[in-house]
């Protein structure tokens, strides 16, 4: 049997470092040599920085250097770190494929995404470790030395295998496997949405009813025919997982009031992998492809678990 792999063959795999800054000026000082080094190597430079930081960096590098801006984190239906990680993986994969070289990535902590306890950042870095694992990416994430939430410093310490100190990258022995990090910090529940417009309990033999309900909900919406088919497929895959690996009975909820379709699948099972579908499955592996494809097709896909079971919320823009 022939096995094609979607994984990159490049020697460099993810180098994920944390850097800590005292002030905005200190941050600019720390960013400059990393950016200069990327330019000197002729590699693309991708950023997820606050506008003022990005502007300062662009000013320093001059007009000849183009900064690739990663899609900022944060969704209309609440921030989802795993969605951001999946999206950045897609964007960085394309950048690396286009340039044929590693990509340097510089990111900055943004306070408005802290939420109640700053856990967003720990989940983001853990998810990036999984989603970018096989990509030729040199990524440095900058955090304030004294953040509002202690969790941010603690999380950054655990999720980054490398630490930027005095301009040098050092390995951090206390770094943990991303799934181990998240074992103590489960992914957050997204904001409550109120009563759904469609509610459908289903079992393994009623998946066609789930598909029909999604199709009905999208009839007359701004979603085009191909988009409707893809969204139906995405929901079908998550629903299939729920009844195949979760519990024999699961529930579909749909919110159809806005331009985007919001959908939730709930089952009573436990979530074994806290970060499913973030890595392309190996082609010889028959399982695990459904959620990966659903993540590619949805504009956001957030999985979390609580004492009632496992929940997946999806958003599909037209």
């Amino acid at each position, binding site marked *: *049997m*022939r096995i*094609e792999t979607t994984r990159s063959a490049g020697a460099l795999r993810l180098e994920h470092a944390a850097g800590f800054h005292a002030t905005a000026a200190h941050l600019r000082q720390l960013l400059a040599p990393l950016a200069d080094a990327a330019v000197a190597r002729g590699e693309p430079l991708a950023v997820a920085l606050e506008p003022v930081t990005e502007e300062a960096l662009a000013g320093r590098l001059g007009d000849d250097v183009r900064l690739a801006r990663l899609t900022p984190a944060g969704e209309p239906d609440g921030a989802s770190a795993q969605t951001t990680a999946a999206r950045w993986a897609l964007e960085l994969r394309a950048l690396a494929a286009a340039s044929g070289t590693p990509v340097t990535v510089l990111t900055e902590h943004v306070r408005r995404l802290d939420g109640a306890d700053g856990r967003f950042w720990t989940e983001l870095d853990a998810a990036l470790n999984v989603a970018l694992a096989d990509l030729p990416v040199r990524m440095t994430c900058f955090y304030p030395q004294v953040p509002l939430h202690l969790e941010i410093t603690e999380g950054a310490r655990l999720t980054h295998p490398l630490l930027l100190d005095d301009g040098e990258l050092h390995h951090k022995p206390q770094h943990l496997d991303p799934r181990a990090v998240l074992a103590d910090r489960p992914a957050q529940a997204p904001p409550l949405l109120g009563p759904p417009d469609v509610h459908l309990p289903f079992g*393994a*033999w009623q*998946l*066609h009813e789930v*598909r029909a309900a999604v199709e009905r909900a999208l009839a007359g919406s701004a979603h085009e025919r*191909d988009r409707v*088919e*893809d969204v*139906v*497929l995405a929901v*079908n*895959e998550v629903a*299939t997982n729920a*009844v*195949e690996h979760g519990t024999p009975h699961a529930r579909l909820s749909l919110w159809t009031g806005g331009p985007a379709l919001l959908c939730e699948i709930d089952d009573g099972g436990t979530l074994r992998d806290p970060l499913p579908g973030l890595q392309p499955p190996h*082609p010889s592996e*028959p*399982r695990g*492809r*459904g959620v990966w*494809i659903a993540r*590619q097709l949805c504009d956001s896909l957030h999985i979390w678990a609580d004492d009632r079971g496992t929940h997946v919320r999806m958003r599909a823009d037209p």
Partner: protein
Amino acid sequence: MTTTVEDSRSVDHAIAVPVSDEQLWEMSAAFVAHGLASGEQVIFFDDGTSEAVLERLADDGIAVAGPLSDGRFTVVPREVVRATRHSSLDEIGATVRTTVDGALAAGYPAVRMTGQLDHSLRSTGAMADIDRVVDAAVRGRPARVLCCYDRVRYPDDVVEALRAVHSTEVVAPAIYDDGLLRITATGVASARVAGEVDHSNRPRIRKLLEAALDTALRAPDAPPDITLDLSSLRFLDVAGAVGLVHAAEEFPSAHRLVLAGVRPGVQRVLDRCGAPFAAQLVVGTRPEPGGDG
């Protein structure tokens, strides 16, 4: 007696009892297609299924736009069909006779009619009476009538009562039909897969491929390619697509899995599941709708 749709030249007034919507569309489309191919006038009494039957005709590569515009093929709208509930038996008989006369006068060699009547509108006895009147109106004339009473919409006692008044039953055997997915054999190593493949029926595809490959390996004159016609496959889930890709990769090297008439949505799933990299898998998309025949 029983006969198949393919042999429906011998049908004068026959009943069909499809077990699924997919079979209803398949049989209706085949009956219409044979009529058009024979130059007969075809009249379809819509009961809410005409859209699906027209889609099936498109899947089958039958051009209907021309025949629909020049009168060779007529879809009688549902409202008109429903209005017959106010007609007397005599009026219904007269309508059928007039229809046959009209077709012959227009130069058609024969006329064929099919469709369903909503049983909720009439009692079982009244429906049997209508069938007798229709039978009398077409007997000995160049007219063929296929009455479809499917088990999805009609209770078993109604189906049995109506079966009793028809001398001929048209059958369409399937390898598998669960109401969602219908698999029919189309040759020694080929089959048609219609409907939707998901978690509930996915293993059937694997079994089908194993059986087809087994046949191909044993029969010296069987074609090396296993062909699945997916023209009427409206949904394929990810595991189903992965299953097809893996099955093709595991075929002995002299054999290929050929998927024909693949719809765009199904093709996108196959593409995402590695179909382009599977050397022994051939994915043929459906041809663009042809000219009017």
